[in-house]
């Protein structure tokens, strides 16, 4: 499956935040669980707004959640 250049630590952050489920994160971020699933698998690049909303859920800066790979 195609992987894009934007990587993330969503799965790790979920576990660090009280074992948050994908559904919980999806609800808080205002997207479907399948979108969170695709994000964690790096098969989907979020919009800037969604990226900020996810970072806000975890209360961390954007760069701690998403990283751009130049390779």
């Amino acid at each position: 499956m195609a992987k894009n250049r934007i990587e993330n630590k969503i799965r790790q952050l979920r576990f660090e935040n009280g074992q948050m489920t994908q559904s919980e994160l999806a609800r808080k971020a205002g997207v479907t669980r399948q979108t969170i699933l695709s994000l964690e698998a790096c098969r989907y690049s979020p919009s800037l707004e969604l990226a900020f909303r996810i970072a806000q859920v975890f209360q961390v800066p954007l760069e701690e959640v998403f990283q751009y790979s130049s390779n």
Partner: protein
Amino acid sequence: MDISTREKNIWIEFTITAAVSTYYFYSSYRLSGWTQISSYEMGILVRNVIILSIVTSIILYALFARETPEQKDERDLAIESKGNALGYYSLTILCSLLIGAIMLSEGILLIAESGALIGETSNLNSAVAMHLILIALMISALFKQATQLFFYRRG
């Protein structure tokens, strides 16, 4: 396999479109080929297609997609937009080909037994053209739905 309700709905629409178009084109061809079809036969066929669509929809949705889909998020909108775009491109190409076929359809000369030329006709009459347009519409709908399913599966 993790499938959202929205994706299930698209699978169902894809199945219904494929089933109904297969039924319609097979039945219309069996009636009198695609060169001509009477209003009565067309009426019966349209009625059957409507009934088939409704019954198939009820059964498939009742069996596989009872839940209300969640509100569309940005990924759903992006996939829908890609599907619409590719469906539109395929419809444009098919219609362009059809226009070309109509313009280039050869005139068939009608000659009496005496050898006198009676007139000229085309092997692409209105019934055939209508069916070709319907085929183009069905193919583009299937293409749109298949594109959406591809992107949902790919992630």
